[in-house]
């Protein structure tokens, strides 16, 4: 989905504020929110990491931007625990005595919308192009590289394909490629020469350039 989470290349966010000697958690609830998500994925096995990422992406955009990382994590985890039937929203709200905002429902995507496994494999040094197809569900192709051409720097082992895994479709694994794009290719500005961005892309996100 072209969601609010897909921030690469967006402008207008202001300065980057680095806090020195930052603690792991600034408040106690943040550690418990982190633990809750570890629990949901790793111990209760109520959902997987791709479903989790997609749940965060499904947050209302204004909520997403206004929330801290751990509030986003908490919202994704709580949404999935409710959607999977582990917890009941009314019970939670009754305990809290207040409304608990969840993420929006999953779009009604069907398995046919997932692009077929790649026909081609690539090697280090190959030029590749990011396919233009846009999946309405979870995907890990950033908007800013769609249709762009780069060069393979590294081939990683096969990992589970997130578009299928996040939606419970038939599991499949594919190698991922670290693809280097010149910044001039991405943003069309000559003064970005000598700068590049490497994006790690599943095989079926790519095609040979024409």
């Amino acid at each position, binding site marked *: 989905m072209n969601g609010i989470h897909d921030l690469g290349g967006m402008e207008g966010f202001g300065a980057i504020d*680095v806090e020195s000697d930052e603690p792991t958690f600034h408040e106690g609830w943040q550690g418990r929110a982190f633990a809750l998500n570890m629990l949901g994925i790793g111990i209760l096995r109520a959902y997987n990491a791709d479903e989790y990422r997609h749940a965060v992406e499904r947050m209302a955009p204004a909520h997403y931007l206004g929330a801290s990382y751990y509030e986003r994590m908490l919202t994704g985890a709580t949404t999935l625990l409710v959607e999977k039937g582990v917890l009941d929203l009314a019970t939670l*709200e009754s305990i809290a005595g*207040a409304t608990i905002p969840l993420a929006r429902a999953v779009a009604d995507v069907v398995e046919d919308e997932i692009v077929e496994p790649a026909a081609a494999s690539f090697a280090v040094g190959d030029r590749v192009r990011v396919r233009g197809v846009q999946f309405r569900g979870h995907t890990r192709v950033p908007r800013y590289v769609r249709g762009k051409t780069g060069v393979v720097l590294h081939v990683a082992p096969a990992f589970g394909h997130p578009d299928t895994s996040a939606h419970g479709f038939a599991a499949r694994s594919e190698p991922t490629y670290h693809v280097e794009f010149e*910044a001039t290719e991405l943003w069309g500005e000559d003064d970005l020469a000598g700068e*590049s961005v490497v994006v790690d892309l599943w095989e079926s996100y790519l095609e040979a350039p024409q």
Partner: protein
Amino acid sequence: MSGGDRIATPAERVAAVERALTDEGRIEAGTLDGLAASAEQQFDWHNGARVVAKAWTDPTYKARLLADGTKACAELGFEGPQGEYIVVLENTPTLHNAVVCTQCSCTAWPVLGLPPDWYKAPAYRARLVRAPRGVLAEMGVELAADVRVRITDTTAETRFLVLPLRPAGTEDWSEEALAAIVTRESMIGVALLTV
């Protein structure tokens, strides 16, 4: 909704979820705090500093680290979630690497710890890929014009660790002394090390 108009604070929401899971016997009291505490201990960026210092002082370790980051980090005991496939990016006098996750905030937890707030904030996630050299300069990384800048976006399952340049003037330092000057920011690529 049964909760009325007020939105629960995040702290209240976690407490409600914890209480409901406890009531249903899914977890015991203290389970979440226990997981948080062990995560805080396990995922520590000082681990990455030890990897870097060892690579600076032991050429054969450095070669193993660049060839197979996962295995070389595990040699020192640094492995686990978000460290299943680690690739080390070596900074050189002509190439500067920095790492971001534009889509969420993926990070090599076993060697970089849980990511800091600035790494997870929209400004860093949005801006670094759009203006690599400019944003790094803004963050204090001033690079000569002939140094190539390469940003790596953590969009799949590989996790990245930057091997920073060893600062001049540390030629006879011990591995322990070197580890103490490595910062988390330098291993993400948004700081240069000096002594």
